[in-house]
């Protein structure tokens, strides 16, 4: 831990002021880099213990992050379903066949519309007769009671629940339209549930982040205790608190970083394992859905967060326990 550094000449040794300052910064950085490397060397001398601590951190981080990735996948998937949602426009019964076809053509040109399918009153009646079995009863009626229907297929631009609602309102405003209908309750519910789950993941992440702090803190506390005699000697021969603190802080950084790497590996392996069954399921529904993995940005964020947690955990432990060790 308190290995021999190779410090540069001290600041006093340099004559030029500018030079002296940049030299001091360099010396400072170099000394930190040396402790960073030597603390990794220290950890590598007890590989099993180090790995176990890092693995606990990794698992704690993998849980919320993995859930987050699954949620993102679910969102993508439900986005696909959203695209399949249709809007049915029931036209007023006094709308002529020509008017209906004109309207259909106008709607096809709208930016949010992918396709429009026209079902005339007669077609609707035929379909109804064929499917419902009420054909004879309908014969008793003089007029065809069914309206013509335009089935609208919204395109990508109108995917989210909000923009679909907007499109719906817009379509309703056409004078020929009697009723515009979209059953998107289920998708609203799905979104609400996902929002709740997302909140849950945030809470889980906060709790497990706290767990990481405690794990790192406890590991560093034990390291401090096992080096008690050494710390006392170093204090007796004039080691500053910063000098004693530094290797422990860097151990915390390494634990965090290693834990983060383990979390990335764990999540990727887990996703690889479920990607097979997911692919089969998607194939059953003829969906092009593909499971997405951790992006580069997410990996960088995860590693930064885990490293910071490691640093913070060791900082707390060091702040609390180093002061208790004084020569007597």
């Amino acid at each position, binding site marked *: 831990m308190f290995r*021999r550094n190779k410090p540069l000449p001290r600041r006093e040794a340099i004559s030029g002021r500018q030079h002296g300052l940049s030299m001091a910064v360099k010396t400072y950085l170099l000394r930190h880099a040396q402790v960073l490397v030597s603390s990794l060397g220290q950890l590598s001398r007890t590989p099993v213990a180090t790995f176990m601590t890092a693995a606990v951190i990794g698992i704690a981080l993998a849980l919320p992050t993995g859930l987050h990735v699954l949620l993102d996948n679910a969102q993508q998937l439900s986005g696909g379903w959203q695209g399949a949602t249709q809007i049915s426009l029931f036209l007023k019964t006094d709308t002529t066949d020509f008017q209906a076809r004109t309207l259909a053509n106008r709607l096809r040109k709208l930016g949010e519309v992918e396709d429009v399918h026209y079902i005339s009153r007669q077609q609707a009646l035929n379909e109804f007769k064929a499917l419902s079995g009420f054909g004879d009863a309908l014969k008793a009626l003089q007029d065809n009671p069914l309206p013509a229907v335009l089935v609208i297929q919204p395109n990508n631009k109108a995917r989210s629940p909000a923009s679909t609602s907007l499109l719906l309102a817009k379509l309703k405003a056409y004078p020929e339209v009697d009723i515009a209908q979209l059953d998107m309750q289920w998708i609203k519910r799905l979104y609400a549930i996902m929002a709740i789950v997302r909140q849950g993941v945030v809470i889980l992440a906060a709790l497990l982040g706290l767990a990481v702090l405690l794990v790192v803190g406890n590991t560093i506390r034990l390291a401090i205790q096992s080096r008690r005699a050494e710390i006392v000697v170093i204090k007796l*021969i004039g080691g500053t608190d910063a000098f004693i603190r530094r290797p422990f802080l860097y151990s915390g950084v390494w634990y965090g970083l290693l834990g983060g790497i383990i979390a990335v590996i764990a999540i990727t392996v887990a996703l690889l394992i479920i990607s097979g069954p997911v692919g089969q399921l998607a194939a059953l529904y003829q969906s092009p859905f593909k499971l997405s993995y951790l992006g580069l940005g997410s990996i960088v964020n995860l590693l930064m967060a885990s490293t910071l947690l490691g640093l913070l955990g060791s900082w707390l432990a060091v702040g609390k326990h180093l002061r208790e060790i004084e020569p007597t």
Partner: protein
Amino acid sequence: MIRFSDVSKRYPGGQEALSNVNFHLLPGEMAFLTGHSGAGKSTLLKLVTLIERSSRGQVIINGQNLSKLPRRRIPYHRRNIGIIFQDHQLLFDRTVFDNVALPLVIAGVPSNEIARRVRAALDKVSLLNKEKSYPITLSGGEQQRVGIARAVVNKPPLLLADEPTGNLDPDLSWEIMQIFEQFSQVGVTVLVATHDLDLIKRMSNRRLVLEQGRLIQGGEA
């Protein structure tokens, strides 16, 4: 170099370990601190190294009043004092070289300078051939000499030793005292707490005698 003015020390919940101690050691002076067990020898040395602080009175080291020294300055104060312990206090997971180099590493001395000064210190205690050994492989006397080398490696103006010869045979003890004597001759102030009255008798140095926390010989009014 060391000045105690009316210094008293009372441990929390205990009686006075030191009462109204007055003395002054000049630069380059070497003195023995003696007295029965429990007389306060270790306590006096701890006041100098700020392991403990005085309850009353003033301890002035090299012109610095220790009662005015804030906690964060203590490490820098200790770098001016070489401390030698009865139980050596060496780090057993490091070589002799690394043990002796530690004060220099702490002070941020350049590495080529470190090697030079460590070898010079080991040479003074005749252990140059042991620099790559681990302390556990050395005899008690050799370990104590490593401790001395570590204490003097950054050339402190003040050397303190608490029972440095406690576990050593008379010949080795004598040898260690001679090493201290040499340092005092080049201007280092040396204060040695010891029980070893036979050894002290053979030397002509000043004696500070403590009895139940009072300095009964060698001090000043």
